């Protein structure tokens, strides 16, 4: 006799005191899912932009360009070759290449065109690739060139580096800002839904309160309800963001996109905590809003 009864008495036994979800909560699921998707995308953009910025900085730092000015009757090519030989002997210098005049012309061509190049003095350039672990300093290279009586100037691309790092920092900050704005929006949405939920279930809250339920007990019902809902929505949003990223990666996105935002499979790891974070935000917001509303109810 007791068996079938117990089977039907699952609601309180399972601790589910609030009614099953209604239509409002379906819409809320959707909104939180979309917000979590956007937050996840922003998080992955932060990671990819960080990676891009590091890559660009590393590339720029790894190379310097030396412009050699020939002295006396020395030809430009000979002066460049001499400078290359001196620089190759500096500790922390990797590969050194004196650029042929033709190659230097090729570098200038896109800006000046063919017509005037023959009339212009073409700079004598030496490309220096630095040892990545222990790179030579600009000062050490300059000292070596001065000691060898070579008139040269070194461009370590520091102006570019500053710009690149500044741009990367800006992108990171904007993405992080978007990430936090989206999560705060999630909190606001849950707060709004909690208010609506409390109003819609005022009868339940009243009965619980009259049965001696403390405010914390009531807040916990809403807290767990919204935590679960936010987690499910977060899972959906994070899954969708992961799918979009995988699609971009798998379809071999265009070269320029891959350079600007070089996604990595490891970026998917950032998606794992997102549903938990959304659930935490949902739980805390629901708890705080419920407690505040119950206190105001007094």
């Amino acid at each position, binding site marked *: 006799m007791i068996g079938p009864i117990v089977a*039907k008495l699952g609601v309180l036994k399972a601790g589910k005191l609030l009614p099953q979800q209604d239509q409002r909560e379906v819409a809320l699921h959707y909104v939180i899912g979309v917000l979590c998707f956007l937050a996840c995308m922003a998080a992955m953009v932060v990671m990819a932009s960080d990676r891009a910025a590091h890559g660009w900085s590393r590339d720029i730092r790894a190379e310097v360009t030396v412009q050699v000015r020939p002295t006396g009757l020395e030809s430009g090519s000979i002066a460049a070759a001499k400078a290359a030989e001196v620089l190759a002997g500096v500790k922390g210098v990797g590969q050194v290449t004196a650029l042929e005049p033709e190659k230097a012309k090729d570098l200038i061509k896109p800006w000046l065109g063919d017509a005037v190049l023959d009339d212009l003095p073409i700079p004598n350039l030496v490309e220096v690739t630095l040892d990545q672990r222990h790179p030579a300093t600009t000062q050490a290279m300059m000292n070596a060139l001065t000691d060898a009586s070579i008139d040269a100037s070194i461009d370590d691309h520091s102006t570019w580096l500053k710009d690149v790092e500044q741009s990367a920092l800006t992108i990171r900050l904007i993405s992080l800002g978007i990430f936090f704005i989206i999560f705060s929006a999630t909190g606001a949405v849950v707060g709004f839904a909690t208010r609506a939920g409390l109003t819609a279930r005022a009868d339940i809250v009243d009965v619980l309160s009259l049965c001696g*339920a403390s405010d914390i007990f009531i807040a916990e019902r809403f807290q767990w309800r919204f935590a679960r809902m936010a987690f499910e929505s977060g899972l959906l949003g994070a899954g969708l963001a992961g799918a979009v990223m995988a699609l971009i990666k798998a379809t071999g996105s265009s070269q320029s996109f891959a350079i600007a935002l070089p996604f990595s499979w490891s970026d998917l790891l950032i998606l794992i905590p997102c549903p938990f974070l959304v659930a935490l935000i949902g739980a805390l917001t629901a708890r705080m809003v419920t407690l505040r509303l119950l206190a105001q109810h007094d």
Partner: protein
Amino acid sequence: MAFHGVSLGYDLGMPKTLAAGLNEDDLILKNLNFELPAGSFHFLTGPSGSGKTSLLKMIYLAQKPTTGVIELFGETIRPHDRAQTAGLRRRLGIIFQDFRLLEHLNVFDNAALPLFVHGAHFHEYHDDVTELLNWVGLKNRLDAMPNVLSGGEKQRLAIARAVVTRPTLILADEPTGNIDYAMGLRIMRLFIELNRLGATVLIATHDEGLVKASGMPVLELRQGQLFQRDVSEGVR
């Protein structure tokens, strides 16, 4: 439970929290001073609109008095202390005129609700709740939802929920209003039994027959004042 100089006034349906500006005519309960000794049994009677429900509401802390002090279980009620309110309500069993059952919970869960709220586990309360529901004649309706219950069944369920925790003070607002006379007497026997076990009972009712049949003392509300009478003696 004791009232010390308790008055209650309403203005456009909203309770006044300050005595300032209140006329005597605004008060529906006027300067009530009375005590319900622990373990006593009283009926609360009076014409419609005399303030019976409001008086009960003040005792179960759903209504703040306009003036005066209420003591419950030896504690002075602090109107804005929600933790105290929750603690005191745990010792109350309340039967509402409108039942206040939760529509999404079945009969068993509605009856077990206070125990669940008090932190009891299913296996701890299952047998007691089943037995109580059997006693009030809802044995075969354990898994029914409130919307399919008759008025009388709802009333019996509301009574079962109110007494399931064996409360120290039972407050009932027209507990026999929707049930037949025989069931009414049976419910009264339950209250008397709980009273014998130590519970204080206060029942607001219109049912003079029930009052006379029980022979218990009566508190009568008239024009905002409370009068005590014994059934045999009439109004004092």
